[in-house]
């Protein structure tokens, strides 16, 4: 009996705890997989088989039918392919950009002390407000309003800085970044729409790439700051002593060291971009439609078309699973900081 509580080898678990751990993990696996199984099975059902009551096993409880798959892949195949490719392009590019820009900023925020002046921040907001008021209220064109706003900022900076000497710190910048995520997209959707309309970029993939990159940048910065914080400074200091420039330190030393965190962040941001609905709804019409719109569109006047919706949900999961399989081994690797610490 005691053998159940003693590990057989160091670093392993005793048999009973191991069984319990396995049990708990299997239970959660069931919780994760059952809804997805239900979606899979529903994609092979006829409308009547969905409406009549739950049937669980194909070929045993009901005869599976391919009508939903045929509808999505064959009959409306062209209308499915376009959003699919759009989604892939937009998600991957926006993620790449967000992670690149964000990690740079995160590294800087952990290693460099910034002290932006409160005066500059306030004046900047005031200038933008002035530009907005001039364009919307007084009807001035952007070409006039922007230089006026810039002038206000440049001229007012020095005097205001002399009056208000307070300065913000790294943490404030960090918090400001993450606070960008707070405002619900439904409210910023129309202003963003108007912004892109003014530059005639509506219904382009570019608009969505830029928007998603901006929306996810705070998350990258926020997460990477923590991962960079965990890397001890001795490594950098020795590299700097050897004459490496900051750029080389970042790209050749820090990023590889933070790889598990970097990959986790990339995956998360990729998924957020891939699954985003509201901004895609607003900024795209025909050309730049993405997959989530197609999923939502299956809820038509007749009620949700569960079968075609299930097909689309499954189609959407496939590329993400592939990406994860590809990247997940990077998350699993431990850091080699263990050799340095202590």
């Amino acid at each position, binding site marked *: 009996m005691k053998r159940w509580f003693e590990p057989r080898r160091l670093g392993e678990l005793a048999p009973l705890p191991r069984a319990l751990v396995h049990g708990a993990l299997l239970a959660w696996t069931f919780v994760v997989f059952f809804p997805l199984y239900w979606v899979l099975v529903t994609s092979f059902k006829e*409308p*009547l088989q969905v409406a009549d009551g739950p049937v669980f096993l194909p070929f045993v409880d009901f005869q599976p039918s391919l009508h939903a798959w045929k509808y999505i892949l064959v009959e409306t195949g062209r209308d499915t392919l376009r959003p699919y490719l759009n989604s892939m392009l937009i998600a991957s590019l926006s993620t790449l950009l967000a992670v690149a820009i964000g990690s740079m900023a995160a590294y800087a925020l952990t290693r460099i002390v910034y002290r932006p002046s409160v005066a500059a921040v306030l004046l900047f907001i005031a200038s933008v407000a002035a530009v907005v008021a001039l364009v919307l209220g007084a009807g001035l064109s952007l070409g006039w309003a922007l230089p006026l706003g810039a002038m206000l900022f440049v001229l007012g900076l020095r005097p205001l800085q002399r009056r208000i000497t307070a300065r913000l710190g790294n943490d404030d910048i960090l918090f400001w970044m993450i606070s960008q995520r707070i405002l619900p997209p439904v409210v910023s959707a129309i202003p963003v729409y108007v912004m892109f309309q003014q530059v005639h970029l509506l219904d382009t993939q570019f608009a969505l790439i830029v928007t998603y990159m901006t929306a996810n940048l705070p998350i990258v910065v926020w997460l990477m700051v923590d991962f960079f914080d965990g890397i001890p400074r001795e490594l950098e200091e020795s590299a700097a002593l050897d004459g490496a420039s900051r750029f080389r330190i970042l790209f050749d030393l820090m990023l590889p060291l933070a790889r598990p965190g970097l990959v986790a962040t990339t995956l998360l941001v990729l998924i957020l971009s891939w699954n985003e609905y509201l901004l895609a*709804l607003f900024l795209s*019409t*025909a050309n730049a439609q993405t997959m989530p719109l197609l999923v939502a569109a299956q809820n*038509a*006047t007749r*009620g949700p078309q569960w079968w075609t919706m299930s097909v689309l949900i499954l189609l959407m999961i496939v590329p993400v699973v592939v990406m994860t399989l590809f990247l997940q081994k990077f998350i699993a690797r431990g850091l080699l900081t263990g050799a340095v610490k202590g």
Partner: protein
Amino acid sequence: MNRRSISLWATVACAAAIGMPGAQAQTKAYAGVTLNVMTFTGPQIAEPLQRRGKEFEAATGAKVNVITVPYSDLYQKLLTDWSTGTNSIDAAILAPQWMPDYVGFLEDLSPRVKADTKLREDDVAPFFREFSQKYGGKTYTVTLDGDFHIAYYRTDVLAKLGRKPPQTWDEYLDIAKAAHGKDFGDGKPIVGSCIAKKRNAQSFWMITSVAGAFLQAKGTSEGAFFDPATMKPLVNNDAFARALEIYKETGKYGPPNEINMDVGDTRTLFVSGGCALTVDWGDIGPLAVDPKASKVVDKVGALMLPGTTRVLDRASGKLVACDATRCPHAVNGVNRAPFAAFGGWSGAINAKAKPQAKDAAYALFSYMSQPEQSNADVTVGATGFNPYRQSQFKDMGPWKKAGMSDKAAKDYLGAIQDSLNSPNMVLDLRIPFNQRYQQVALDTAMARFLAGELDVKGTMKNIEDTWNELNDELGKAKQQAAYKASIGAK
């Protein structure tokens, strides 16, 4: 403005095609025109649009781009495109109930419709012709679909119970009570009545379906939402109270989670044999005969919305018995008021589109609405188009081909025809910001009423207060003028 019929052009084009391939482009009326038409993702509505669009392109050379968005977002997408000046959409198939908000962006089609003989406007049911397509006296849409509520019942269930189809709401409740919980042969107990009561779905239309006959008896121009003479909401009186009671009582004989069912759920439940009675738009007719989706093929009957023998006396706020003066349109002493909920999908054109695009769009919608095309489309359930022309009821052939038996077709079409021809049809609310009156104020109050948060008096007071507040906020005189214009009240 192309007055010649499309079929004529098609003949010319075909002849030219056979003879001179190179000259084809010149003989086509709209060669080189690209038309962006938006509607919601189908197959309903979008599929016939695409199909007819291809035929239209072959005949006239205009390229028809069908752009679809999720159904729940169509309103916002169109409005954003047109109100911000983007104007990437030339035409759309939308709901006439959105007219008050859209009217500033739509092209006035009155001159085109008047000059269009091929359209056969005289064949379109008067309600759609005079009320649905018009706003402020001008025509803004071309009707493609006739949408209103009718009541459906299981013929086998009623036969077994020995009842006749319900003519009043009391009879409706009677039948629901008698049928509820019993098994009628398929091994599963049935529920009495299924009505879509989910919040933010169709509940606010359903209550008007119940209350309409109590509130309006003298014709569409009497109005069923406000008293046109004073703009007083018709929601705090004995008639509306009775309607609320009936509405809640149908829940007693309904499925357990009826409060979370929208019309897609109730429709599915009905055609899979789960309900004895239901209130829905016209979709159930063709759906019930589809063997892939229905277990009640040939067991469904339809009739005009049940009515009442007692109507509202607006002066006193009480219910009074129907007589010849009070209910001039009563049938056998019962006042019926079919409710044209939502209005029926119609084609509308962006006033800021290019002139050639406008011409082409009108020609497309006219083509789709002409009896030659429309009468075939309304018999196919998947198109989402329901009957709205008199000629669509004369020929039973296409309906029988779709799978309806003689009796089912006669029943279904009879219910629609009765409703279409009723002079007491309730027009859906079409004043500016109608969404805030119905979808926000009325719907929220109904949801709280059904959840037990408010009682009948509280619900009525809540709706009256919020509607009055909206009237005051938006300008009572303005709203009153708009309301009177929409129902043709003097």
